[in-house]
Structures are given as C-alpha cells and as structure tokens.
C-alpha cells in the first residue's frame, strides 16, 4: 500500500515537471509572423485597450530560453550587450532596467528599438523568437527559476551560468499601479 502511494506521488511529480521540457517547434502562423508593435505601458491616448495576453509559456520552457540564448548570439545582441555585462549597449545582468524588467517590456524594446543605439527588430525576427530572446534576457539577471535558465554555454564559460546567478531586484519590481485602484 505504502509503495503504491509512493509510486502515485512520483507519477504526479513527473506530471508537474513536464512544462520545463515543453518544446514547440512550429509555433503556428500567428506567432511566426514577424514581430510588430506592442503596447509599452499603461499610459495611452483615449480609452485603455485590453492588454494582450503575455505568453509566459516562454519563461517556463527550458528549451525556449535556450533557443533565446542561441538567438542572442545569432542575431548579434552580443555585439553590443556582450554576454550580459554590457559594452556599447547597457548591461543586462544587473538590476538596472531603463525600460522595465517585465517580459512584455523587453519584447517591445527589441521590437521598437530605443534611443541612443538600440535598433528596431520589427519585421526582422518572428514574434515567438522575440519572446524567447526576452525570456533569455530575463534569465541573465536571475529572474527565471534556475531549472529553466540555461546552465551551460557553448563557448568557454567566463561568468556564472544563468541558472546559478543570484536574483537581481529591479526597482520596478513592486511598481505601484499608475491609476489608483486599478490593479495591473
């Protein structure tokens, strides 16, 4: 009886662990469209729009984050931001976030570009890949669980792996809602 219970618990545990290994090769026609404009924050003209659902599944799959890491090299993010320490562009592994630390904020930075050098990647990268890169960027400062963040690099390791970095605490972590009473 005891053994059966134990086996059942192990089975349940195995079910829980599935998301991390969830791999999507064909994200479907909508997600594969080249990325284009996203809403940056709550401040907007006219009536507020219902915010689009943020695809957090990219932050839960080790495969998606690893893909993000590959794109970070392939699309030459590394050229300006280095491996997170920053060079021409700002560092990504610290707690300072000029345009916000949320997944959708990083997504819009990549898609729209930002003053003083960050180019816009609109129409150049499929949307799902932008989300994967954004998820990886978050893992650089320890924002993702360590079982999802990459634990190794293809090149010679010069810094601690993303999975073993301490979590940085960005200033906007406990942001107050802009309109009192309306929860984000």
């Amino acid at each position, binding site marked *: 009886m005891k053994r059966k219970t134990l086996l059942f618990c192990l089975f349940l545990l195995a079910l829980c662990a599935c998301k991390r290994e969830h791999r999507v*090769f*064909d994200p479907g026609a909508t997600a594969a469209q080249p990325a284009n404009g996203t809403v940056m924050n709550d401040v907007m003209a006219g009536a507020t729009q219902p915010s689009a659902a943020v695809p957090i599944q990219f932050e839960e799959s080790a495969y998606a984050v690893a893909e993000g890491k590959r794109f970070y090299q392939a699309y030459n993010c590394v050229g300006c931001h280095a491996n997170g320490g920053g060079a021409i562009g700002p560092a990504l592994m610290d707690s300072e976030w000029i345009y916000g630390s949320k997944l959708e904020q990083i997504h819009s930075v990549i898609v729209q570009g930002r003053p003083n050098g960050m180019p816009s990647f609109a129409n150049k*990268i499929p949307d799902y890949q932008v989300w994967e890169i954004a998820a990886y960027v978050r893992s650089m400062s320890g924002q993702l669980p360590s079982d999802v963040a990459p634990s190794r690099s293809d090149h010679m390791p010069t810094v601690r792996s993303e999975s073993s970095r301490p979590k940085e605490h960005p200033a906007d972590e406990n942001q107050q809602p802009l309109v009192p009473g309306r929860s984000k």
Partner: protein
Amino acid sequence: MTCLANFAGLFPGRQTPLRPVGPQALHIEHTLVLVFAITTIVYLIVMAVLTVGVVRARTKEPLPVPLTPDPSTERRASWAVGIALGITTLLLFIMLIDSFRTSHQTAVLAAQPAMKINVYGHMWWWEVEYPMDEEPYRMVRTANEIHIPVGAVVDIHGTSRDVIHSFWAPNIHGKKDLLPGYQNDLTLRVDEPGTWRGQCAEFCGLQHAHMAFDIVAQSRKDFDKWYVQQLTASAEPTTSEAAHGREVFLTHTCVMCHTVRGTSANSHVGPDLTHVASRSMIAAGTLKNNRGNLTGWVANAQSIKPGCRMPPNPMPASDLNDLITYLESLK
C-alpha cells in the same frame, strides 16, 4: 579474394562502402570483405560442428554416469582444440595486420600536396568553404554540396560550429569526427566522376538523420567552370517578380541568417544563398531543389524538419511566390 570483392558490383549505390570510388575506400573495402569472409567461414564451420554434435547426441545412447575418460579420445580432443586455437590466433593476426596495412594506406595520401576545403558541421547542415590561396576575393562559400576535380587530392579541414558531427562519404573514405574548437583533417581522392552521397555519422540532435551532403566529382574543366561561377556575386533580378522577391528577401526575416553576396544580406547563421539555385538539393540533402519543395521549405520548414533552425515564414502568397522566383534566379 578478388572473386569475393567483386560482389560489391551488385550494389551500384552512391552511398555505400561496397562501391569504392577512391583509393582509400578501396583499401577499406578490401579489409571489409576480408573480415566478412573470414568471419562468415568461421561462423559456418562452428554452426556445422554444433549441428553435428546436437544431432549425434540425440541419436546415440546416453553415456554412463560417472564418465570414465578414454585416453585416446582425450588426446584427440586436445589436438583438435589446439589446432582450432592455432587457426583462430592466425586468423586474428591476419585481420590485425590487414587492418594496420589499411590504416597506413589510407593515411599516405595525406603526404601529397592538396587542394584545401573547409567543412563546418552545423545543426543540421554542412557549410563548405573554398579558401583558395587564402585570398578573401577568391573565397567561395556554399552548403551541402562539395565540388571536387576527379583525381585531385583534396584536404578536408573539418570542424564544427556547435556539437560533434561526423563527416562520412562511404564511397570515398572512412568517417571523420568534426569537433567544436578543434580541426580534424581528412585527405581524399575520387577517381570516378559522379555525385557521391555522404551523411553525418555521429548523432547530433533532432534532425541528425536529415543531415546529408553530396560530393560532386567532376572533370577539372567542369570544376573550374563551377568555381568561377560560384565566385561571382548573385544574379541581378531580370523580371519585376524577381525584383520584388529580392525586396521581400531583404526586408523580411531572411536577412537575419542568410547571405546573398551582392546584396545587403550578409549573415552567416544559415547557409549562403548566393547561388542556391545551382545546388541540386535543399535542406541538407532532404529535398530535391525544385520550386514546390523550395516554397514548402520557406513557408514552413518545421513541417519538413521539425526542430531545425529555419523558422516558419508566414507571408502573403504573392510575396512568397515572388521570393521563390528570386531564389530560383540565383543560379
């Protein structure tokens, strides 16, 4: 021996070690046939003796227990075991010496002056680079198709851009691992014109099975013609469809990974497409290079090679059509 070697003629395939087209593959094939012949004969003899033993034991009266050893039978048995042991040792030594000889003979080719080709294994395709005289303007880069002159000694410098792959064209030579961060050399020669297929022989991930290449052995004249043609920049579009196709290529996601020399597309993540229409296969030997396959590949490569690095590219049909027209014009 030669009689046995001739059975290779039964398999005229373009991806088999039984149809050698180079000196090294010939030596390897000889060793293969020798070892196969010896082991087959030994196997048959062992099986025959075993069968005789089983049949005789069934027909004969059961032996009295306890057994009383008969000195003359004992002596005969000792002789038989001794002779069998001697023959086994001799056969093993024959195979050992032959194997040494083959390794030596496949290696001596490396001492000759050779044409250099760099081969980089990628997940899941082959990048091929001709660094002629180490001059940048004489450099040719292509993918999944290695053109070489017949009879020329060719030095393949192999390495990997990601995980361990293995370069194996069985008609020409043995396998050679391609390792990240390390260069492995393989010298080969092809004596028979033709297109010989090779494949990755080291499991390298999801699409390992769809990672093939062609070695096109052609006359020196044809090779030079091919090489000069590959040196040129991409063809300018001649029709309005192709011109629009180029615009789609340059303003869409394609430029993030591919190169088309003569345009602003200049990334080395994916295969060089400057002369993509001159290649006979696409997707690393997976599909024939024709309009239908190319369209399917560009539109949704994930349905053909799930997990490969090429993302799906949903776009309006007219754009896709013009893009393929442009790609087909890149002869």
